[in-house]
């Protein structure tokens, strides 16, 4: 019991440390991708040609800048909002499997350690969606408490947008859940390992999920809550220094979570077809068990990195939606499509599995 607790605490420390560090570097990657897609060089002054120390410089800047709180802001809520943003983005990682995890009740171990902070959570997806919905509060409260028209408009936009897109987001994975018969992220990966990747059985679901995920993370082409050109800075207009930085980190953590979800649900998680299996062959040496486990983690992280890069490239490809077209897309296109997809999948599952 004691050792379990220590193990989990160590895992939390590692996951939080790595994810925060990764997010700092994601900002650098984003700036590089932005620069390259516009035929520029990007940050290259701090830390050599690739600007590898730029995140440190950015972080120091964020921490040392003057932290302005407007006089007319509702102070407690104004301070609470960025905390919500970063906490909600961080605790979503509790159920995200980073590698192989032994299914609950199984006697055979899939690896030397479980790559999940809370292994055996059988409602993983629900938990992540619930947390994701809570992060709406960060944006709304930030916009409202700033006592500023632009911030308020940003907050309003985002509440409508995030709530609208949560519906297709939830509906889009139901088909996959029907097929895999589980809400547990590990069970979904195992099903994909034994059969085929989710993107093959649920191509429409994949598309819907991807589009809604862009909207949920407030990324372009759906970044209407911020929309610098229209709303100055949107919900974080009045935020400065590290409070602004926390929104920024929260957004990128969200991107990472969403990328993990895309990989876990539709791209097979740690699975490489015909190469990596859930259970290592009996009699594999301990050393090989570790190698296999970390190979799976590596595959997973590689896929996630690709998805993150894709999300960044999309940002520099597509222009922002107009607000009414944004709502049209959610309510008139995505939700009906998701419902059709769901009914179709349900019918197919019923017909194939038989009564």
């Amino acid at each position, binding site marked *: 019991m004691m050792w379990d607790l220590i193990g989990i605490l160590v895992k939390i420390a590692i996951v939080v440390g790595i994810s925060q560090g990764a997010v700092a570097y994601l900002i650098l990657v984003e700036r*590089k*991708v932005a*620069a*390259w*897609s*516009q*035929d*520029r*060089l990007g940050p*290259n002054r701090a830390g050599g040609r690739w600007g590898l120390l730029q995140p440190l410089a950015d972080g120091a800047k964020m921490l040392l800048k003057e932290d302005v709180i407007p006089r007319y802001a509702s102070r407690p809520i104004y301070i609470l909002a960025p905390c919500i943003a970063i906490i909600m983005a961080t605790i979503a990682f509790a159920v995200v499997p980073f590698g192989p995890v032994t299914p609950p009740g199984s006697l055979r171990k899939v690896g030397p350690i479980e790559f999940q902070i809370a292994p055996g959570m059988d409602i993983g997806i629900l938990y992540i969606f619930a947390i994701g919905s809570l992060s709406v509060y960060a944006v709304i409260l930030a916009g409202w408490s700033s006592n500023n028209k632009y911030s308020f408009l940003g907050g309003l936009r985002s509440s409508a947008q995030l709530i609208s897109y949560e519906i297709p987001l939830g509906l889009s994975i139901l088909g996959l859940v029907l097929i895999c018969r589980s809400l547990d992220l590990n069970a979904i990966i195992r099903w994909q390992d034994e059969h085929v990747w989710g993107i093959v059985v649920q191509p429409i679901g994949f*598309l819907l999920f991807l589009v809604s995920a862009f909207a949920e993370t407030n990324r372009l082409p759906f970044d209407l809550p911020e929309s610098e050109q229209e709303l100055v800075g949107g919900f974080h207009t009045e935020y400065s220094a590290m409070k602004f930085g926390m929104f920024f980190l929260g957004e990128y953590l969200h991107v990472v979570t969403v990328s993990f979800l895309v990989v876990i649900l539709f791209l097979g998680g740690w699975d490489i077809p015909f190469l990596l299996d859930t259970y290592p062959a009996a009699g594999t040496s301990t050393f090989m068990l570790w190698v296999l486990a970390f190979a799976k983690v590596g595959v997973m992280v590689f896929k996630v990195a690709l998805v993150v890069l894709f999300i960044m*490239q*999309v940002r*520099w*490809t*597509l222009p922002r939606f107009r607000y009414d077209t944004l709502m049209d897309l959610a309510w008139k296109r995505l939700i009906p499509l998701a419902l059709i997809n769901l009914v179709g999948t349900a019918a197919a599952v019923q017909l194939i599995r038989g009564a």
Partner: protein
Amino acid sequence: MHADHPSLKRLEPPKLTLMERTYLPQIFDGLLVTGRHILKSAVAGKVLTVEYPEQQHIPSANYRGVHRLNKDENGRVKCVACMLCATACPAHCIDIVGATAPDGWDDREKYPENFIIDELRCIFCGMCEEACPVDAIELTGLYDLTGLSREEMIFDKAKLLSVYDVTKDAEPMRTGNPTPGMIASGSANHTDVEPVPVTSGPILRPLS
């Protein structure tokens, strides 16, 4: 012309196919475009920007930067204090103090005792250059004009002449070397002037 005029041709937006109405092919095309740019600049290193302090940008030959007052072959200022540039200047940033030409300057009656350009008011339109009958004032390719105070940015005659000294090798005068007398006799031909070659190598910076 009213809305249903017969000569007006109405264009209908093209009908999109079902696939096009999902916008997925267009998005894919867009991704290809950005992807090409990313690969080109990240892998091949072909970028449009230069790393400024180390790599100097060389502006085109007709770039309009800091002014200079040209000197003739005797080292005298070419300006004849005719005030055409000051008159042409839309920003009123040129202030010329004219005086009778010193003894021995036989080709002109006046010369500028002082010639002051407020570089902060200047809009770098090049009108002064166009107006000057003796090609005394020219805009150079110097673009990194900075100063710590407003006073510093008001260039007097000495400073404008020093800009000429600094830039004369990199940027030769645009029109041969007509003396004021030639202009007066109307013999100066501006059309047969060789185009100024784009200068290569670093343009010398320090001005002060």
